[in-house]
């Protein structure tokens, strides 16, 4: 009996050891890469398949960037004093507005370039996660340079320290405009920032009272923008230095409010739940979630610690959570372009496509961000998604059709059509690495077994796979 028990123990440990040295295998590798990035190339899958899950997660974390690879647009540091805008003649103002619109488009194209080309898609997924958490919108901020600076800030801290990020975002000029901090003055508080700070950025709904918002708003009075350079400026004369009580504690200023919110366990739990829904499954498991939140808090809010804990929960790897999340428009568009290895010279058309699919970059619908999940998919967006994928796979045919009537178009439209026409995809070349490894094709393209029975060979099979409903899942 004892012998048998020992043998069993040995067998178990040998198996565990073998799993470790043989690595996580291609299915897990595909899952990890897709869930944290946009795609999973065959060679990456082969590489990660050899690593253990922990090694795989460490490899991702080690590759994280703090700066974009794509050079910033030339106007990144420009600032126009709003008082100068008011003094402009009507023609000047129109020209100014046109320029802002153009730069707004450049901004979106710039981020798409980065997502399409980055060696660390995980960094961009996290930056996008923060963009959807600390939302600001070009529609209200109206300054592409400020929105760009915010994006640079989000990337810098994307896998840094959440406390530092929260403090920095609260003084970020785009945020100050977006949530009206700039008009939050002593005696005339504007509650917008204080409310969203608690409801959406830290505690989550229902963990504070209306009075806490009113008092916190007073604490942030005077947090403003320097009209000379567009930087954060504290205006002492607009600051209410009376006593404020937030969550039962006395605070003097906004900085203390932020620290107080960071000290609440609710903040780590709320943030962990948001990360869970982004990376693991629609329904967080309370026990495991608590562990992630605890790991995060005890690390002093190191985002890497949170992501390490999250990606190593059994739930992340559980079979029932594979293909349980719906791809965002960015996942689908950037992911498909990357997966198919399509070179994109001008990403602007895809910025428009994302907007049409419900994810207009730099312009979330409201301060709560994109609701995501099932809300991504309705009949309009599902058909547009399918049409996009279908067109890519027919890139060679559509090219000829488009070139025929391109000259009759206005310059703006011509640019879009041209950009689409420049796309090239050869199914045969793309499929070459799968020769002798045909079984890997569904694994690479679909997060789980197809819902239908895609059939055919070569490019037809490829088309059938991406037309399957499971292609919308990750």
């Amino acid at each position, binding site marked *: 009996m004892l012998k048998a028990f020992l043998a069993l123990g040995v067998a178990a440990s040998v198996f565990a050891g073998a799993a470790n040295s043989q690595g996580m295998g291609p299915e897990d590798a595909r899952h990890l890469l897709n869930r944290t990035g946009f795609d999973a190339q065959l060679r990456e899958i082969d590489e990660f398949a050899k690593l253990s899950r922990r090694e795989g997660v460490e490899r991702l974390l080690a590759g994280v960037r703090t700066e974009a690879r794509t050079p910033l647009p030339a106007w990144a540091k420009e600032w126009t004093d709003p008082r100068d805008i008011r003094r402009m003649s009507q023609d000047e103002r129109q020209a100014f507005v046109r320029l802002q619109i153009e730069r707004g488009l450049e901004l979106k194209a710039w981020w798409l370039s980065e997502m399409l080309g980055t060696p660390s898609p995980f960094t961009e997924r996290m930056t996008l996660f923060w963009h959807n958490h600390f939302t600001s919108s070009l529609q209200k901020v109206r300054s592409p340079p400020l929105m760009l600076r915010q994006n640079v800030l989000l990337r810098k801290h994307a896998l840094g320290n959440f406390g530092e990020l929260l403090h920095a975002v609260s003084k970020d000029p785009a945020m100050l405009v977006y949530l009206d901090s700039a008009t939050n003055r002593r005696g005339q508080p504007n509650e917008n920032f204080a409310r969203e700070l608690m409801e959406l950025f830290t505690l989550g709904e229902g963990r504070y009272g209306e009075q806490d918002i009113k008092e916190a708003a007073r604490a942030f009075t005077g947090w403003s923008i320097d009209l000379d350079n567009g930087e954060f400026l504290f205006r002492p004369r607009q600051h209410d230095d009376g006593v404020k009580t937030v969550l039962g504690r006395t605070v003097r200023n906004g900085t203390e409010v932020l620290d107080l919110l960071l000290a609440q366990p609710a903040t780590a739990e709320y943030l962990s739940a948001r990360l869970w829904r982004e990376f693991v499954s629609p329904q967080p498991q309370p026990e495991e979630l608590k562990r992630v939140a605890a790991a995060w808090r005890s690390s002093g809010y190191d985002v890497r610690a949170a992501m390490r804990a999250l990606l190593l929960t059994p739930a992340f790897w559980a079979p029932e959570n594979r293909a349980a999340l719906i791809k965002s428009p960015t996942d689908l568009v950037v992911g498909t372009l990357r997966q198919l290895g399509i070179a994109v010279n001008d990403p602007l058309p895809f910025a428009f496509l994302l907007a049409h699919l419900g994810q207009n970059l730099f312009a979330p619908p409201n301060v709560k961000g994109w609701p995501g999940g099932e809300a991504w998919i309705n*009949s309009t967006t599902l058909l547009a998604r399918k049409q996009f994928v279908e067109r890519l796979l027919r890139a060679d045919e559509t090219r000829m059709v488009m070139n025929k009537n391109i000259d009759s178009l206005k310059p703006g439209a011509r640019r879009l059509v041209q950009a689409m026409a420049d796309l090239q995809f050869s199914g045969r070349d793309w499929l070459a690495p799968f020769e002798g490894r045909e079984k890997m094709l569904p694994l690479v393209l679909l997060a789980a077994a197809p819902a239908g029975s895609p059939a055919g060979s070569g490019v037809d099979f490829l088309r059938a796979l991406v037309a399957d409903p499971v292609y919308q899942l990750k």
Partner: protein
Amino acid sequence: MKRRDFLAASVAALFSDSLLAQSSGYRRLLVLVELEGGNDGLNTVVPYADDVYHRLRPRIGIRADDVLRLDARTGLHPALKPLLPLWEARELAIVQGVGYPNPNLSHFRSIEIWDTASRSDQYLPEGWLARAFAAHPVPPQFAAGGVAVGGADIGPLAGGGTRTIALTDPEVFLRQARLANPVGKGRNNALDHILRVEAGIVEAAARLGAGVRFQTEFPRGPFGSAVRVAAQLAANPSGVAAIRLSLGGFDTHQNQPNIHQRLLGELAAGLAALKSALMEAKRWDSTLVMTYAEFGRRPQENNSNGTDHGTASAHFVAGGRVKGGLYGEAPRLAELEGGNLRHAVDFRSLYATALERWWGFSAAKALNGRFEPLDLLRA
């Protein structure tokens, strides 16, 4: 059974769904218009004779001389002029003071309360129309239960297994519908949802014919286009039960006067065009149009020439069978609660009006309770 209970049961049976459904049902169309961001009811339906109003809004208030007077104390924002013919034809009901107890001032939470018809402290997963369609299914020969035109979310139609379609242009929809691929079985909520949408596309495409052409000129811009699509859907013989349109941008914290004027102008022109097109299609008498929003705005203007989030607000109900006039209660600006208006009419009473008086079935399941419908429809 006690006699009183017996009587109650008989009365209930008398007004049961089957009886009422015979008289009307889903051949009557409901068009909901969401005023996204929280419309300023006080500058829409203006209590122009109230001194308190002008005191609270010295800069952004609408001057008594500028309003379109409806009676001695109530007037419309001048941008709503295109609605005057409806008012004069007594086809426009204005319900003042619509809200709910313990109002929530967050956009997301409050619109969720409106969309799901929940209490302020209650979280419901489905939209109120989705629940209504689940309890009282839309006839299978209909092209869809509800159609959300434009906009990325589907609000009151969200959730449940109902046949909901979102589209921007019916012709484009028909061309693309061949890409739908409703194959296989669901395994989790995400896949279930996708398969439901795939199947809905195939069904709707089979029933929606070519678009209808109207003499009516629709206003330019996204709201005008959405109104045109609504009119086309209404004119389609296979039928839909409800259409949701939305007009965004009402969150006027800053520089309200210009923005609000433009938005109300778009709204009024759109609704006037809707009536004109539905008259052409002979559907105006079988259509009920209702506006809604997450909240109104604070009576006291803010420091940025705008208004912050408020509570109760005024809403429009229009249609060929509407009994025009003022309903609800004029704003009591001298009796604010925490700086905001108290509500006089629960928003679920508006929904009950649509469900019980318009469609003719009990609203209990969709609204999770009993709310008194408003008496604003002709027989």
